[in-house]
């Protein structure tokens, strides 16, 4: 039998050797921390502190304003300096709580939140996850408690932990799997126990044999968890592709993973669930891979959310070049290019990728030669060249007719295009427009 996989996809240079052997080290911020009220999908959180208040590590500083929303907690102790719009990695200004770090890292008493697992009801566990402000930490930032509350709980039969880490250069999930596999397994057990019919799958790309070995050994004898090696191919870790690879069930863009009986959780999210339920710690830190050829030292850091990006980069010894060409928040395929380093690490920041050179910004697209590479690699099995044509002509009807909304913006089409067309960008722009029109 072939390895679990999907149709399409690409094999870019993965760059993981730069940081895969670097142990996770903790970095504690020295400067002020910035907490955007919107680090998740859904309504922005509402501040519950005011200027001059003293806060502790793990203290809730903003509260979810609705079901699809998430709490925000401080990662440092100090004083609330102000609440004002600040620049974020997505390139927009978002209302943020700024905390003046006193450098003491005085913690709340987390043990007060903890109860033995066997005394917890399912609703208690979900409440703890909600209270801890956990959101999908792979980048999308969908509130986890919402994901864990599907309409039909009995239909959920598979919990997939996404250890594919298919984005090139990223190693934070890998390090988590190697260093704290027990937290992943325990976190997964917590989620499995929320559902009557669920079993767990930990899906890992086969370019991470050490992680597969560690987790397979750890789950030996557990009949409700299997470790699946999936084929190393981008975007293996895309939610819909991962579900298909592991269960052969397909869902389209208008469906949720729950419609395929699945819930998919990122590695860091699972660890955050463990921290919240077992240790009573809310989400105030995450693993960030700082890598690329423009930094002096590649590293995997455990970072307090809210830490300034410039400060974090200085912590790895800064750049080895005066003027790096491009800094990306996230991976090279779907990450966002930054125009300022004066922005905070947020819940979805998986990496800071720093390149000495960049070819993409200067690429000049030429005519499509209809080679069909984009069609061959598209995991959504749409025709990117045709969608981009429709999008460029503003032909929304044709765009929708050709399933333009099934695009997951993974970037494969732009990656392979020999004419260097910005296919993903063009299609993504039209998708945004369509989604905005739907909301009206």
């Amino acid at each position: 039998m072939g390895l679990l996989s999907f149709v399409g996809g690409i094999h870019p240079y993965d760059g993981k050797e730069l940081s895969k052997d670097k142990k996770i080290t903790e970095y504690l911020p020295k400067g002020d921390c910035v907490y955007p009220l919107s680090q998740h999908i859904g309504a922005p959180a509402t501040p519950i502190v005011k200027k001059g208040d003293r806060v502790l590590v793990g203290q809730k500083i903003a509260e979810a304003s609705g079901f699809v929303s998430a709490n925000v907690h401080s990662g440092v102790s100090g004083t609330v300096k102000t609440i004002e719009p600040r620049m974020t990695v997505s390139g927009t200004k978002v209302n943020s709580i700024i905390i003046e770090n006193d450098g003491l890292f005085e913690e709340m008493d987390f043990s007060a939140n903890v109860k033995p697992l066997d005394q917890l009801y399912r609703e208690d566990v979900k409440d703890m996850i909600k209270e801890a402000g956990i959101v999908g930490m792979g980048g999308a930032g969908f509130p986890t408690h919402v994901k864990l509350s599907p309409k039909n709980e009995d239909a959920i039969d598979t919990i997939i932990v996404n250890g594919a880490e298919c984005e090139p250069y990223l190693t934070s999930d890998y390090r988590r799997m190697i260093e704290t596999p027990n937290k992943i397994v325990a976190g997964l057990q917590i989620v499995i126990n929320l559902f009557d019919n669920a079993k767990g799958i930990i899906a890992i790309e086969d370019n991470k044999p050490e992680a597969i070995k560690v987790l397979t050994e750890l789950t030996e004898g557990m009949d409700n968890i299997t470790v699946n090696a999936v084929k190393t191919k981008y975007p293996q870790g895309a939610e819909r592709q991962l579900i298909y690879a592991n269960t052969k069930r397909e869902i389209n863009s208008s469906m949720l993973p729950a419609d395929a009986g699945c819930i998919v959780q990122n590695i860091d999210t699972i660890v955050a669930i463990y921290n919240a339920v077992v240790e009573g710690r809310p989400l105030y830190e995450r693993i960030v891979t700082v890598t690329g050829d423009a930094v002096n030292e590649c590293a995997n850091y455990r970072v307090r959310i809210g830490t300034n990006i410039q400060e974090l980069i200085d912590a790895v010894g800064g750049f080895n070049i005066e003027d790096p060409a491009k800094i990306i928040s996230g991976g090279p395929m779907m990450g966002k290019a930054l125009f300022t380093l004066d922005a905070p690490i947020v819940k979805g920041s998986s990496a800071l990728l720093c390149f000495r050179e960049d070819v993409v910004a200067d690429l000049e697209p030429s005519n499509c030669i209809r080679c069909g590479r984009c069609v061959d690699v598209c995991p959504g099995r749409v025709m990117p060249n045709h969608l981009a044509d429709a999008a460029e002509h503003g032909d929304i009807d044709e765009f929708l007719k050709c399933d333009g909304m099934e695009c997951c913006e993974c970037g494969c089409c732009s990656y392979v295009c020999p004419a260097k067309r910005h296919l993903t960008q063009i299609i993504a722009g039209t998708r945004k427009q369509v989604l905005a029109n739907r909301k009206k």
Partner: protein
Amino acid sequence: MKISSSPHIRDKESTTNIMGQVIVALIPAAVFGVYNFGFKALLLYLITIACCVGFEAGFEKLTNRKITIKDLSAVLTGLLLAMNLPPDVPFWIPILGSFFAIIVVKQLFGGLGQNFMNPALGARCFLLISFTGTMTSFSYDAITTATPLADLKAGKAVDVLSMFLGTTAGTIGETCALALIIGGVFLIVRGIISIRIPLAYIATFSMLILIYGLFSGRGFDVSFLLAHLCGGGLMLGAFFMATDYVTSPITPMGRIVFGVLLGFLTFLFRIFGGSAEGVSYAIILCNLLVPLIEKFTVPTSFGKGAVKHES
């Protein structure tokens, strides 16, 4: 710091690179053409390539557009055009052919990627229809002779081995099946062309020829089949002309349909048509059907029609 939309990395393959690799794949057959037909073949290559590049640059200059000759597509068109010409044509033929290929078929429709039929083949068919005598007079070793395919149609015996090796009469680049297959395999291995079109084309054509053999009293005639496969422009057409990106379907299923259709039409033209050759007409006819084929072979998007999972 530079800003651009994701993805931030790109594959190295570029249009120029692809065209270059196709040119490299044509070199064995092109060089054999010079060996087989002499210095005149080389001169024809130079004329068509120079004219194609010149017409492209000139037209783009005249119409105030970006000069795109660096993408090597005009060089490739020139090379293919020369390979589709008999070695003894007068020099105005390649010049006129280049003009038709680049200006009429390609540039008037919007340049690279916009032409509705293969420029080199369009030009060949234009010349073939307009100057039939010149375009169908072949000689070999300074003796005017018929092509093996014409001999085959006339019921004469042909030497399959020399057809496979290419030491026969024909257009400059089409005679050596061996060199063309080497080039075709190179393109498939390098991932430049998909095997679907040549495979579907050759398989369909072979099947029909064998069936025809059975019904026309030849029996299971393998040498008749081999002569048809090695003769005329079939190999050049299957690996280099039918696989032209711009004028072949982009959908995986469409490529198979396209190949099957080509095999069927080539069989019809060769066996029941007035002329011995049918590859060029089959390909440009199918080029015109590409939008239709694509329309009916759009891939099903991921998860389309998926139903909710119930436990």
